[in-house]
């Protein structure tokens, strides 16, 4: 018996099986995670049919099916399989107060899929499910009836969307630019006043010029608001009267409708097309309704931007540090201690870096910049508050150990032969490092950067202290000078998940959004990594020559 056991142990078979099982477990976990997120996230884009349920008591429940489960505690000796219930997205939050409703399967008398049932996607209050009764123009009836109304509604919605786009453009871009101009002039006036207070003579011509500029800008502003009033009137010109499943009527201004659909009348090709449109909308649109509806474009943009700025900061910083440590510093106790400290830095909880970023970048550096360069704007801070630059630098600090370690390894791996050959040709140490050593270490540096990017893209905690917000009114990049605004707050996919998942009042509506955002975050990280890996492989081929 004992020899048998010994034999088994010595052969190593058990070990091989155990290590294989370990790998299998890890793979299963990764695949399971991706599968769960993908299935839940991708399902969100499918436009389900509208079901009209007639209950035993004669009332109707209409909406899209959102799930089914066995009623908890319903498994009894009488009903060994338990009783089912289905969850219906009933929408019409302005009428019912809820988006979702559980319906026991026992209570359902009949179900139908009325082809003329309409789904209205609205800018506020979520979806509306019901039938079109009439369309009004102002107070006067425009059309009457479900089908006629439907055909009349579609062009009106398109028109309203066009008007909405124009309103949006005027509000954000044009009035935004005017506001920036007025603010600029106001700050310059204030700077002049501050100089006067310090004893300098008031420069009257520039003061007048500024005031004239403000007056001119304000005149243009009034022009724009007049334009806006007109557009808004146009926007609310038409209203559609809807009837819900129980006959309740509701009048909705057409301007509030984003999209009108008849899912039950759509075939599979139309639905597939709708699916693609939905994906595109989520990727390209801005959030609505406390982030639970609409798209996540600003968060994608913020995530990519922050990772890029972080990379631009972390590579020079980390490479220089590693060069000094490996090439110039005398190898001894001090360098060894520094190396240990750097490695340990990688293990510090990220929120600690967040606190440091807040104290150092935001308050110390940002505050100093404000007093030195933007005193006229005080007490409202310019750089002395969280912003995309400070958040990126905090992340750079968080990831710099990874780059240092990888670069050091890369430098150590450059063959001594290359250095000697270069020095033997009369190169100085600096020339040798710059022309031979560093190019050979580039793939290793990029490996460090890849690891750094993967970590930085997923960090949320430090961002919460250094400038991420749940809804940023503007992107950090726009058409007003200086085009890239390092001081602006930003949105981020990781924070978006947290915000939608935990801070949303509408939990059920938020759930698919959490999955979708997670999926997009994973895709963004993968995309950033793949591009860095492609670059690294290209460089590796270049520096490895034809050697296999």
């Amino acid at each position, binding site marked *: 018996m004992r020899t048998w056991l010994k034999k088994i142990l010595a052969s190593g078979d058990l070990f091989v099986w155990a290590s294989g099982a370990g790998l299998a477990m890890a793979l299963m976990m990764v695949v399971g995670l991706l599968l769960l997120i993908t299935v839940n996230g991708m399902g969100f884009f499918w436009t389900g049919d509208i079901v009209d349920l007639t209950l035993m008591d004669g009332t109707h429940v209409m909406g899209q099916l959102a799930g089914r489960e066995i009623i908890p505690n319903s498994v009894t000796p009488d009903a060994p399989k338990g009783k089912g219930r289905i969850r219906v997205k009933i929408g019409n939050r302005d009428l019912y107060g809820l988006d979702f409703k559980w319906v026991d399967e026992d209570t359902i008398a009949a179900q139908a899929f009325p082809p003329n049932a309409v789904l209205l996607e609205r800018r506020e209050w979520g979806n509306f499910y019901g039938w079109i009764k009439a369309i009004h123009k102002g107070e006067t009836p425009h059309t009457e009836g479900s089908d006629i109304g439907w055909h009349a509604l579609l062009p009106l919605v398109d028109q309203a969307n066009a008007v909405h786009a124009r309103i949006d453009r005027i509000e954000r871009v044009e009035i935004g630019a005017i506001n920036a101009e007025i603010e600029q002039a106001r700050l310059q006036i204030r700077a002049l006043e501050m100089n006067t207070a310090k004893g300098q003579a008031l420069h009257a011509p520039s003061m007048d010029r500024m005031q004239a500029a403000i007056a001119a800008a304000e005149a243009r502003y009034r022009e724009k608001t007049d334009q806006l009033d007109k557009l808004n009137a146009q926007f609310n010109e038409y209203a559609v009267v809807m009837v819900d499943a129980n006959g309740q009527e509701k009048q909705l201004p057409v301007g509030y409708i984003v999209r009108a659909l008849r899912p039950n009348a759509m075939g599979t090709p139309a639905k597939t097309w709708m699916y693609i449109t939905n994906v595109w909308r989520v990727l390209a649109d801005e959030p609505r309704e406390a982030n639970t509806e609409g798209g996540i474009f600003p968060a994608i943009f913020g995530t990519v931007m922050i990772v890029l700025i972080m990379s631009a900061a972390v590579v020079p910083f980390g490479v220089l540090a590693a060069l000094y440590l490996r090439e110039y510093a005398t190898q001894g106790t001090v360098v060894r201690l520094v190396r240990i400290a750097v490695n340990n830095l990688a293990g510090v909880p990220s929120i600690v870096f967040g606190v440091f970023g807040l104290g150092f970048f935001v308050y110390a550096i940002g505050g100093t910049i404000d007093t030195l360069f933007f005193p006229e704007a005080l007490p409202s801070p310019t750089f002395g508050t969280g912003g995309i630059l400070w958040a990126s630098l905090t992340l750079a600090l968080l990831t710099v150990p990874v780059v240092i370690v990888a670069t050091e390894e890369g430098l150590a791996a450059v063959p001594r032969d290359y250095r000697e*050959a270069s020095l033997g040709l*009369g190169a100085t140490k600096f020339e040798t490092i710059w022309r031979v050593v560093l190019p050979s270490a580039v793939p290793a540096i990029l490996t460090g950067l890849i690891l750094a990017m993967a970590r930085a893209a997923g960090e949320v905690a430090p961002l919460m202290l250094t400038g991420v917000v749940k809804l940023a009114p503007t992107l950090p990049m726009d058409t007003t000078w200086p085009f890239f605004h390092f001081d602006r707050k930003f949105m981020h996919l990781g924070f978006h998940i947290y915000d939608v998942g935990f801070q949303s009042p509408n939990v059920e509506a938020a759930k698919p959004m959490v999955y979708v955002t997670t999926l997009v975050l994973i895709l963004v990280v993968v995309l950033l990594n793949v591009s860095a890996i492609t670059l690294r492989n290209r460089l590796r081929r270049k520096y490895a020559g*034809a050697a296999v």
Partner: protein
Amino acid sequence: MHTSPDSTPGLPRLAVTRSDDPSPASTVKDLETTITLSDVNFFYGDAQALFNVNIEVPRKQVTAFIGPSGCGKSTLLRCLNRLNDLIEGARIEGTILLDGMDIYGPQVDATDLRRRVGMVFQKSNPFPKPIYDNVAYGPRLQGIRNRAALDAIVEESLNDAGLWEEAKDRLHQSALGLSGGQQQRLCIARALAVKPDVLLMDEPCSALDPIATAKIEELLFTLKKELTIVIVTHNMQQAARVSDHTGFFLMGELVEFSDTKTIFTTPRDRRTEDYVTGRFG
């Protein structure tokens, strides 16, 4: 004093000094000697690697250093272009004169020295760059940017190293695609491109097959018309074939230095005779 070998009549009246030989150093004129080493001691930390080495390396000839592994011949070679400076704890005593200039003198810049004293290593070590960039590396360091001038240097150097015909169609492909022998000749071309006065070769053929070795040995005969060559080799036949003068090292000591013929036929020292006849080593 020894008579010069027949191949170079009248040129080297070189002094042979042995570490334990108290006879005065040479009376050879500077013109005929490139490098003069006097009482060179070398230390790696506490360990002494070279003991009182005195040699005069004749100009435009091939001088070979032979000896068993660890005898200090490579260390001595690396002293000649101050490549040992890079090793922490390394220390040198004595003087090494290059055309009368003390190469360890305070006014000498090691990088300038290495431009005059080129080196080819045991393992061929072309940079992972195109062939052209390898050869142009040294000239570019000196600030030569002119494309035509670089082209000329590259062609001339590759020609001198006997690689032009094989490499001219693939100048802009990676040097690592060349064969071992070609790579070593590329390294020679790279060293020649900075126009050195002296070329140090540290067992340049030890990793090469016989045909590649023969090509490099042939090259030495043409190169020595322009250059002083110091070659370290394990291979006694090679030393006998290519060199004009040979120094035999043992345990960090220069046992005997003489013209090659003498070393291999009538060595004065018993240890030299044992080594060249294959009794040890």
